[in-house]
């Protein structure tokens, strides 16, 4: 067996490359080693390769959305077995601390995000042939036999994030929802919105192809190149604004748009990756408008079983947003296409099954 494996690593800022690195080994009795079959590129990976998240350096392995087959387990892994096909949460959690008992896995002391650098626990990424998965009993979930890798991989982060934006945003039946950013996570939020009984869902973006994709999923497209999105949203919401806004980009312009379209007393759920951005309004302005703010790191551990069930029963079809399926060897091209909006959602196949 080879001592090394392929991995997608940071190259110069804005780029990745594929190189050989040592294969991971069990480090803790609660670890599993997963042979990755399918890994997806997430919008937050672009933040990493652009060095928006400090601490990531050339040679660091990226990737946190993946499906694979368990190759090996530590002695303390109780519920998982080699040979099982699994999807991983983008971050591990212990499952028994105070935070986990409250389903606040983001604040579990064991919180780390795969492939996101020292700011997030320095856990190696999963756009690789093999990945070490800490706390495997919690981190991994088995996949129903008839479900494709391509569907299941979404439950590890992006679909859970979109779903949680709506859930934690407190969406109620009859609400108007505006999604700032019609990229993959925004499209999945559009896809999930009917589950919450929304009246109308708006998708705001600058990229025509993304607006078309969101429209095909049921959104009312709002092209921000053609005018102030708030004019369109207010015109279509009886001059009230959106009840819930999902900021699904992760930059200051998107935050500004989010606050411009939310109604007085509404909610802004921030599902885009933010690091050091300023608030678009003063605290006083926000207080006067009574806007509830929900910063969200998607929580696959809470939602993945429900999401797997919704996929299994045909209520959700996340794989439909995949535009490109490429070899892990072609990751550099895949990232470039994704970055330039020439690809909607890319999954990388290792060639392993």
């Amino acid at each position, binding site marked *: 067996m080879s001592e090394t494996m392929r991995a997608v690593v940071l190259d110069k800022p804005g780029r990745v490359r594929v190189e050989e690195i040592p294969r991971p080994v069990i480090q803790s009795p609660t670890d599993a080693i997963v042979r990755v079959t399918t890994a997806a590129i997430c919008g937050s990976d672009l933040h990493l390769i652009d060095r928006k998240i400090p601490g990531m350096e050339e040679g660091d392995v990226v990737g946190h959305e993946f499906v694979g087959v368990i190759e090996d387990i530590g002695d303390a892994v109780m519920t998982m077995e080699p040979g099982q096909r699994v999807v991983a949460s983008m971050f591990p959690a212990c499952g028994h601390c105070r935070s986990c008992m409250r389903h606040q896995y983001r604040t579990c002391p064991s919180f780390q995000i795969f492939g996101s650098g020292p700011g997030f626990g320095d856990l190696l990424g999963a756009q690789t042939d093999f990945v070490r998965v800490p706390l495997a009993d919690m981190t991994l979930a088995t996949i129903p036999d008839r479900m494709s890798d391509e569907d299941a991989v979404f439950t590890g982060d992006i679909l859970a994030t979109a779903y949680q934006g709506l859930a934690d945003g407190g969406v109620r039946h009859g609400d108007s929802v505006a999604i700032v950013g019609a990229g993959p996570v925004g499209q999945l939020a559009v896809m999930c919105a009917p589950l919450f009984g929304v009246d109308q869902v708006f998708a705001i973006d600058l990229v025509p192809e993304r607006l078309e994709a969101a429209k095909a999923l049921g959104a009312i497209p709002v092209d921000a190149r053609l005018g102030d999105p708030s004019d369109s949203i207010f015109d279509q*919401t*009886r*001059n*009230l*604004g959106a009840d819930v806004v999902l900021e699904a980009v992760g930059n200051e312009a998107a935050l500004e748009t989010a606050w411009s379209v939310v109604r*007085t*007393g509404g909610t802004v759920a921030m599902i885009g990756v933010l690091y050091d951005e300023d608030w678009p309004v*003063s605290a006083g*302005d926000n207080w*006067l408008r009574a806007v509830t703010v929900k910063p969200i790191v998607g929580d696959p551990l809470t939602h993945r079983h429900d999401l797997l069930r919704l996929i299994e029963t045909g209520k959700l079809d996340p794989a439909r947003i995949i535009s490109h399926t490429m070899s892990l060897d072609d990751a550099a091209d895949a990232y470039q296409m994704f970055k330039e909006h020439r690809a909607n959602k890319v999954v990388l196949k290792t060639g392993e099954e």
Partner: protein
Amino acid sequence: MTSYTNSDDVYTYIGGIFRDATADVDLGPKLAASGVILKLDYSNPDAVLVVDFPQGKVYVGDEGDALKPNITLYMTTDLAHSYWLGRVNAASALAKGQARAKGSIPKILKLAALAKPLFPRYEASLRAAGLDHLVDGADAK
């Protein structure tokens, strides 16, 4: 009900109260200090006012097109008229969708508070012009 039937009257009376405000010895400097360039986009009848508080200037129609407002308010002319008669809760009008605002809400509410002493002057200007029906027939909003 519709309070005004043409934009010229809007410019004369609502524009007039803004001209009074910016020229007011006490109020003018406070408004100027706000740094606000306020655009009022009224409908039914359509009318546009741009008030440059720092410069103490009021522009009507397309005269203010070159300015870059930092606050824009959209509402019916009727609502604006009722506001100046002291019959509209500005915060409530925004929350209910009667008016739409772009810009800093604290500044908008601060301006609204500063405007309160002008309400009697607005009413007086209408009565002086023989437009009592606009005062006596206006509804509270």
